[in-house]
């Protein structure tokens, strides 16, 4: 499988990464090189094989569904590029 310029634009949009028009062709070449490399997997017979979900057979531990942390807005906001009172500030979302 290989990708065309339109697909590269669509992937960039899905990944929320702005890509300049002049970069599309180069990126397409790189992505296709990787896709050609992983294409080898299509020759493996995977019929009846379960996909890997946990590499070490351990049962996930659960904890009581109770609040264990919180009340630390200063710590949460400490690295915010923009914050006001106890909120993160972002550009307008709704028109």
């Amino acid at each position: 499988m290989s990708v065309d310029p339109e697909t590269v634009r669509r992937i960039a949009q899905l990944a929320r990464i702005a890509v300049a028009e002049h970069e599309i062709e180069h990126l397409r070449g790189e992505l296709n090189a990787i896709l050609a490399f992983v294409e080898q997997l299509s020759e493996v017979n995977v019929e009846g094989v379960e996909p890997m979900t946990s590499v070490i057979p351990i049962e996930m531990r659960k904890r009581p569904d109770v609040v264990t942390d919180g009340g630390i807005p200063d710590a949460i906001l400490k690295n915010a590029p923009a914050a006001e009172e106890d909120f993160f500030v972002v550009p307008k979302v709704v028109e």
Partner: protein
Amino acid sequence: MTDLTSLTLADARERLRRREFSAAELAEAHLTAMEEARALNAYVLETPDRARAMAQAADARLAAGDARPLEGVVLGVKDMFATKDVRTTACSRILDNFLPTYESTVGANLWRDGAVMLGKLNNDEFAMGSSNESSFFGPAISPWHRRGANTPLVPGGSSGGSAAAVAAQLCLGATGTDTGGSIRQPAAFTGIVGIKPTYGRCSRWGIVAFASSLDQAGPLARTVRDAAILLTSMAGHDPKDTTSVDLPVPDYEAAVGRSIKGMKIGIPKEYRVEGMASEIEKLWERGAQWLASAGAEIVTVSLPHTKYALPAYYIVAPAEASSNLARYDGVRYGLRIPGRDVADMYQNTRAAGFGKEVRRRIMIGTYVLSAGYYDAYYLRAQKVRTLIKHDFDQVFAAGVDAILAPATPSAAFAIGEKGGDDPVEMYLNDVFTVPVNLAGLPGISVPGGLSAEGLPLGLQLIGRPFGEETLFSLGNVLEQAAGRLSPQRWW
């Protein structure tokens, strides 16, 4: 007094306890060495004030006869580990000047045991790379040169700063992370020891996530014993990481020097890849002979799906990365590049904040997870992963204690030499290390000798799940036979 930076971690620990020198003197000697070695770009942040304060506290404990296991031992920390109030960036522009309000569990375990932090170490951006060239802070440089040349070489990656710093004696040991070989390959390139433990052995909490089902933390050090000492402190169950395993942590140091008589060592025939350099082949044979001379039994084994490990990895790792790195949006922390609206801000921030390799992997991951392609790529890769793990299970079920293989297909290469137009060229470096991550197994890289050009080559031992002690015992035998490797100082 001997040069304090040339001691092994075990020696330094012992002599600190005997009060032959102070933790403050040990820290000072290393801080000076770091300053003199800035050309290597191994540290992206030196933390001398913190080092001095921690050393002072260590000296108080030593004076009181109350030394903890790593009291006064000076370490470097890969920039993938969150360090409280100390800039943590994963060597990416997108984390900007991020100051964590918490410490990673592995880091906290080391400080709990009395270790002293010297600074943060360089790595490939988000640990994505095999040469440390994708770091936003520029490449770390290997302390090694080819014989009679001064071409700058890569220290390997992604834990390139850790490897360069340990090899150049800018710390007694360092933390690393390994998703596809990022501890073992740089250890091999710089002539030191690096171990990736079994998945789940070390907590991933507070480590910047790359590919969560593959990432594991581990130590890099100049000897097998030093690596064992560090892993004993780093490992352990952590309720904050649901994939962390609740098994007692053995005293790994006790395994160093233990007899390997009667152990069965597998040589996987599929690792004899086409076009393998003859010096790598010789190194591998020599390694097998060393183990045989110490009483191990060498057997040929088969891991039939080996050739599919790299392609499976380059689906699984980017897929998980694209998901993990979705959090970098310029809202809660890190870089923000303004835009017309919030979506525009996301796109601008991520375009400016991620380097080329990271962007490439996010895009591949986004593609293989996108509607209509998930089954063909991601699901198939996870099935192939099951087959790869099954290969290893079969070998271990047949009584093999560990597998011996080369760590890398070649010695270190020059800065700028690989991965120009074809990203896959760089990926091939990890051919011997990636299967181990896919199967969640422990793997150790130990120096095996020098190449014809005078560069270190590493041997890799792959163990059963939680078979780290076996790896330390075997690694020590290889180390005794091969001898320690040290670069000639040129910086």
